């Protein structure tokens, strides 16, 4: 039996040494590492972690650079992404962005009708009295995003709310436009507009 144990151990060690080096292959990296939080194919389970499937590649690239350079410092960015992005090369970042952009996005789920109605108003018309512009102007009528403006459709409501709170409190300060937009939003307005944007 001792011999058997020794043989199995030797086999394990041999298999380990021969493991393919896949660190720079975006699909392998996404499925082997990123998927632990962001889910297989960029569909996450917990709303702490954003869905990445179908996200704008320019936005993903910008965020990964911001994590790597410690320019995006909201609590979860520091806790998770500063470490994860620290050793990524520019090329790997771009390849990951392309990979996730090509995945099928999560479908939006409508929320409670009162929230949806209030959210739609803010999303399409803004809140002029508070100086809040319409979200649709940059993120698009269907929340699909455009280049540096992220896709919001199908994103977790709690994640969107957490980002708006981060912009308002200043913990996430790598988006100057959003710092101005979120400055006057109330928690109720954040929840409403996030529910609507997510549902697209």
């Amino acid at each position, binding site marked *: *039996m001792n011999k058997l*144990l020794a043989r*199995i*151990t030797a086999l*394990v*060690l041999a*298999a*380990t*040494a*021969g*493991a*393919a*080096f896949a*660190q720079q292959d975006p699909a392998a990296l996404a*499925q*082997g*590492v990123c*998927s*632990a*939080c962001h889910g*297989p*194919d960029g569909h996450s*389970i*917990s*709303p*702490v972690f954003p869905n990445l499937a179908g996200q704008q590649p320019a936005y993903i690239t910008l965020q990964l650079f911001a994590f790597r350079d410690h320019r995006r410092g909201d609590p979860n960015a*520091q*806790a*998770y992404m*500063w*470490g*994860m992005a*620290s*050793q990524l090369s520019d090329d790997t970042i771009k390849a990951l962005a392309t990979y996730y952009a090509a995945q099928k996005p999560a479908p939006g789920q409508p929320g409670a009708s009162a929230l949806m109605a209030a959210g739609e108003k803010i999303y399409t018309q803004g809140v002029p009295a508070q100086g809040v512009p319409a979200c649709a102007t940059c993120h698009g009528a269907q929340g699909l995003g455009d280049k540096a403006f992220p896709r919001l459709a199908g994103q977790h409501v709690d994640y969107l709310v*957490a980002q708006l709170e981060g912009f308002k409190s200043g913990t996430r300060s790598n988006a100057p436009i959003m710092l101005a937009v979120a400055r006057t939003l109330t928690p109720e307005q954040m929840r409403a507009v996030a529910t609507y944007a997510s549902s697209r």
Partner: protein
Amino acid sequence: MKMQSKCGSFFALLAVACSALLLAPDNAQAVPSFARQTGMACEACHTVFPELTPFGRRFKLNGYVIDNLQQVSGMNTSKEQTLALNQLPPLSMMFQTSYTQTQTAVPDSAVSGAQAKNGQVLFPQQASLFYAGRIAPNLGAFVQFTYNGASGSFGWDNTDIRYAKMVNDHFLWGMSFNNNPTVQDLWNTTPAWQTPFDQRSSTAPSRGATTMIDGGLAGAGVAGLSAYASWDNAFYAELGAYRSAPAAAVIDSTSKNVVNANAPYWRLAYERQWDRQSWEVGAYGIDANLYPGGGVALTGPTNRYRDWAADSQYEYIGDEHLFTATATYIRENQTLDASYATGASSNLRNNLKTLRLGASYFFRRTYGAALGYFSTAGSADALLYAPALFSGYGNSRPDTKGWTAELDWVPYENTKLALQYTNYSRFNGAANNYDGSGRNASDNNTLYLLGWINF
């Protein structure tokens, strides 16, 4: 209340613990080896250490290999990676200091009729050095080397060296080489990492009878190899075997509870994750044939211990509120051919049943409270469970029951202060005069203050 008269000692220890806090780093990172390697804060893998989050379970399942440090690399001509060594080793330290007080002092170890000092300070209770992290592309290790304050000795503690390979998006398999059945497990219901109350006083009285899976085998010294597989992070299956591997090199009649050949171990679990919640239900067990040893040669009949257990864990991890509930039930069927033959037990067959229920709540991972119930019960055996001052059994039964409550303060992610109270309604078989020498179960009620830092 006797307890109140000792308040002064508590404040003294609190002062010690608080001064220890001042030494903690500003940017706190828990289970610091892993934090150093991954660049992620403790909260990524732990709700509050040592309890794991779903990501923490995934990190362990993957062989501790997620790594964001500068590497010393090697590659062969087929572009296969032959080396991936962290430029700096992921080392860390753990330090625990504690204060323990029992409702009635325990008997003096040498002078008959006298009592030991009550109110025991251990500084340290335990101090550990860890190597924890990746050691090769698909190979990782969690190795703990510990100084135990109660015994005053250094020794190997929990060790789990594992290989893991992701085959595709859904399927992962791996192997674990470890020295404690369930130390390789992913959930905090199993004996090695049970929460809440993963830490208890090492000087307070503890129940006499435990099942083999619940620390009995680990205490005797074992090494095990198991293979595991995971599908979609939902289904988990593991099969392995343990052999005797006590610290002393030669296993002979002086060793105790020596495994005859191999003791198979198995584990099945299902976990569902949704939103911020996860729920696990599972079962595990071991089948061990043991030579009692302890002066008897390792030949002839053995004692057979067949353990099976069912467990379940629920976790809610919010930004503000965190809640965990755990449940474990262990049943052990013993066929004591060896002990019965030598007159060490009065029955050929006995059983032991352990139930543990626990719930904990944390606010912002900082302020916490936990409550738990524990019970071990089994068949009466006059020889196996014999009377003896303090540690014996007065009425031939192994039963121990009670509850534990704990308050926690986690000022930094890597620093915990815990105040714990354990109340026994039954100890080693009885509520009153449990040892046959007049000691009651409630005399063992324990107040325990723990300061715990990892850096």
